[in-house]
């Protein structure tokens, strides 16, 4: 099992912490691990949980600040439909297809329900 940083778990010891060799990326889950958890969830009869983990596998590659900013953009009355569409395109261009689809869907529904900015 490898962390997001690629470091194997057995290297993450207290002494490594003391030497300043452990960073947040070492305690961060890797996209491949989330894909594995998605398979487990699907095998246990929960495709929605699996889908959530697959979206998470995509978000796992993004910095905290961008994850927070996508969340903010999806809150009601924060974005125009065009802004959401642009964000969806940007995500899709980087291969985050599931997150892109979620944002694109929001753009469509928000417009119909009057939740755009």
């Amino acid at each position, binding site marked *: 099992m490898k962390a997001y940083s690629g470091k194997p778990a057995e290297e993450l010891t207290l002494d490594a*912490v003391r030497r300043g060799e452990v960073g947040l990326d070492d305690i961060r*889950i890797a996209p491949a691990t989330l894909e594995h958890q998605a398979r487990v969830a699907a095998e246990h009869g929960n*495709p929605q949980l699996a889908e959530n983990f697959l979206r998470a596998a995509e978000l796992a590659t993004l910095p905290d600040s961008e994850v927070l900013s996508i969340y903010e953009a999806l809150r009601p009355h924060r974005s125009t439909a065009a802004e959401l569409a642009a964000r969806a395109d940007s995500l899709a261009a980087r291969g985050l297809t599931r997150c892109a689809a979620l944002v694109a869907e929001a753009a469509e529904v928000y417009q119909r329900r009057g939740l755009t900015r």
Partner: protein
Amino acid sequence: MNGQPVNLDGFAFENPELGLVSLASPGDPEPSLLVRDGRVAELDSRPADEFDVIDEFIARHGLDLGAAEKAMALDDVEIARLMVDPSVPRGSLVELTGGLTPAKLARVVAMLQPHELMMAAAKLRARRTPANQAHVTNRLDDPMLLAADAATAAAFGFRELETTVPVLADAPSNAVAVTIGAAVTSGGVLVQCSVEEALELQLGMRGLASYAETVSLYGTEAVFVDGDDTPWSKALLASAYASRGMKMRVSSGAGAEVLMGDAEGRAMLYLESRCVSLARALGSQGVQNGGIDGASIVSSVPRGVRELMCENVMVMARGMESCSGNDSLMSESDLRRVSRTLPILLAGSDFICSGFGSIQRYDNMFGPSQWNAEDIDDFLVIQRDWGVDGGLNGVGEDVLAALRRRAAEAVRAVYGYLGLADFGAGQVDLVVDAAGSKDLGPGDPLAVLGAAQVIQSAGITAIDVVNALYETGFDVEAQRLLDMLLARVSGDYLQTAAIFDRDMRVLSAVTDPNDYAGPGTGYRPTAQRQAQIDGVRQQRDLSQLRAEQQRWAGQWLVPRGPATPGTDPRDVVIGVSPAVGREIWRTLSGIPVADVLGELLAGLEEEGCRGRVVRVNSSIDLGQIGLTAARLAGSGIGIGLQGKGTALIHRRDLSPLANLELYSIAPVITADLYRMMGINAGRHAKGATPVPVRNPYTDEAVEARYHTAVVGLVAIERGCQRPSAGPEEVEVRR
């Protein structure tokens, strides 16, 4: 009757227009599902072009259209029976529920009677092993008290701790303090800091919290948007937590829409069914519901408390973790709050309470809970009464004090090491003994705020906290916290209903699935756990009772050979039971038997009679003892006294079970009453007319309080009984 606490609760007429209706409203839609070209064209009587955001998200993501045709075609009652039937496996029921629309699921669950809800819950909950969650907060956000209380909560067995803040900016400090405190007691305790959504996520990303729960869903679009979110933003949030390896669940619970004045005329159960369906649709592994903040609104209407449990069962039926409410205090009546919780405790749930206030009521910054620190003994005894596992265990006082001290010291060390705050050693002592923040004095609110600001501005992460613990000598705690951080890397605790046991093993629907299939199956406590449940601190055995009696032992009853009949008409004999002056020295009312004899003798003396004491060795029966005494007495009047304090006046010509006066309720007999019995026995001896003395009034649960001691004392008497030995004269030395 008007003064009973239940009359402080609010009760409302049903009012569907305001949403004040529990299980079904005329305003609820007819269940329906129309699928065209693989897409939902109509959901619960609403065409797709009129879907609000909740319908839309459920229609797109929440339903298993493959299962829907069959599921929607079944009668409500047929599905309800499948839910209850233990021979129908959980998995197949969850699969079927995947094809049910929100309105259909609500109708099915509304059919279940209370005991059927319990049957359904026992089968449908996700995790086999039940658990419990605590609230750990205080009014001052005092970090050392938070840590000590977190250590305490973990020691009582809570596997999730939820903190929050009265002052938002204190949040990072609270998260750190509770995390440290939990690690002092046990590995694997999950910690959340319930604050505004974005801040909570940030804290989690830095490792300062290990799960999230306050991701709120609402059952109507207007209230959802008032909550500053949409199903899409919540879905993104769910994925954001998972993307950092953190467990999360959503929160809903009926009543919120009513409180916000926008229930659209729907029943509480239907609106909550929408929330539960949405939770599944957006990929949440679990749901906290069962009223929560709206619990008292729900319980103000007919069948409201039943609706609360229906909410949990819907979550279970949709295959998610149930964190089952029993959270906000829903009544002033102790009877009512137990009634609300009991079915869930008996049936078992993933988390019995989604917030047992393990701290003082006044320190609970979520508001008082349904169960609070002062109720822990009650909860433990109820577990023991029914032999069920509610997730908690007793803890010795010495163990608790040591944990609280170490937790406070660990926080002091870490805050000092990281330059967050300097706390005095004297503060540690205060915290160890404190029941709550009222015992700490005013404190320094700026110190906490300052610490929180440094955590934020310096970007302190959980890794810094691990290092600080390690550098200051808290190696075990450092390792436990590091283990929690590393658990994110494997992600096993993202799965449904995951908790860690004390050895960091993940228990979830994957590793520990509920396999209840009727009697003889499902969760059973291990022998070790059963012993823990059974072993409440209040239990006593015979050796303890003997030792307690022994503390009152003395040389005041001196044997003087076989008793002989008296001839003096003023001679009254007091017969005592076999163990008196041997192993029993004090009555149940706490009066030494020597003093009781003193009062009886003094009463006789007041009437000019001569009292003497004999020990009856052949019987422990009070009637026999009294009769034996009466037959030895020159007057024919005897007093019988058992060591536990029960006493009577007897006369030589009566049958053994008859008597002239009886003090039957030993625990409430006072010294004055024994004096009166002496006086009356004297008057009987003289042939005068005594004024009978009544047993005193009592509303104590006398039997509950004393019957275990009675059983012990009777066993001791039995041990001293010598059937063939005659009565012996004894001298009372005082």
